[in-house]
């Protein structure tokens, strides 16, 4: 625990880069990685489901469908990376807040993609 406290105290919030994360910062990142994996899992399941449905009907998957399905699957990864980047200059509490907002924003993007897909 001694090394943990020293890394967290030496982490100046103004300093840029990921060296300032410390053990607790990375713990926050890992916990939210599991939460974001829920979205990612849904996206991959959707991708597999859509592609298998298309193939079962013998229809080629068009470029638009590929784009939508891949965007749906990749959105959690992109938002997670963005949250990690935004949170790197913040204290741990700020990182948690950014990840929570990101987790909700993934839902927004997913629903946007779904409504675009159903409209097209």
């Amino acid at each position: 625990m001694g090394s943990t406290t020293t890394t967290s105290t030496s982490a100046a919030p103004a300093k840029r880069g990921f060296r300032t994360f410390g053990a607790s910062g990375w713990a926050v990142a890992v916990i939210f990685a599991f939460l974001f994996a829920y979205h990612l899992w849904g996206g991959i399941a959707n991708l597999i489901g859509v592609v298998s449905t298309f193939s079962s009907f013998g229809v080629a998957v068009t470029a638009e469908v590929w784009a939508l399905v891949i965007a749906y699957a990749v959105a959690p990864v992109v938002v997670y990376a963005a949250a990690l980047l935004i949170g790197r200059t913040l204290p741990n509490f700020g990182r948690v807040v950014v990840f929570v907002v990101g987790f909700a924003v993934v839902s927004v993007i997913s629903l946007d993609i779904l409504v675009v897909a159903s409209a097209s």
Partner: protein
Amino acid sequence: MSDRRDDDALAWAGDDDPTLAPVGSAVEGDEIEEIDDASVDEPGPAPVRTAAPTSAGAGRAAQPTVLDEAEDAEDRAAERELAEAEAATKQLSSAALIGMGILGGVYLLYTIGWVVSFTRYQAPLTVDFSVVSYRITQTLAIAATPLWFVATLLITQRRDIRFRFLWLVLGVLVLVPWPFLMGV
């Protein structure tokens, strides 16, 4: 007339070294008088006085000692700190306040849009996990808009107001309730 200190029977060499007296500690009466004289005589921040002392004691008091400089530096630091604190806690300008109000209204409308989209949902007859997952996603989407607003205000609290507006405008672009607008 020589220095008074030389007349003192119990004077130690280097007794009047100003660096020996820590700031804020109780110093001897002579020292206090000297400090007061110096601060009264020298109103400028960095006084450069030519050495034209009428007497030895006055000349010694006129010289800015290390202690004086240290006190000046401390005063300047305190003033700077005060100015920073005042700048940090000053009220929003009218334009910023109106802009915040408009953005807050947009966020409120977005939240209502997501809620309406949530209530339009018609559950299928067989409820499986995909339905539950979809409802979770919709609930998170409702929460996203207020969360973004509050988090932006929270995190950009101590930063420039431009950052606050930048992130709020970014949220307005990201959080548009497309399902509501497209009638889903």
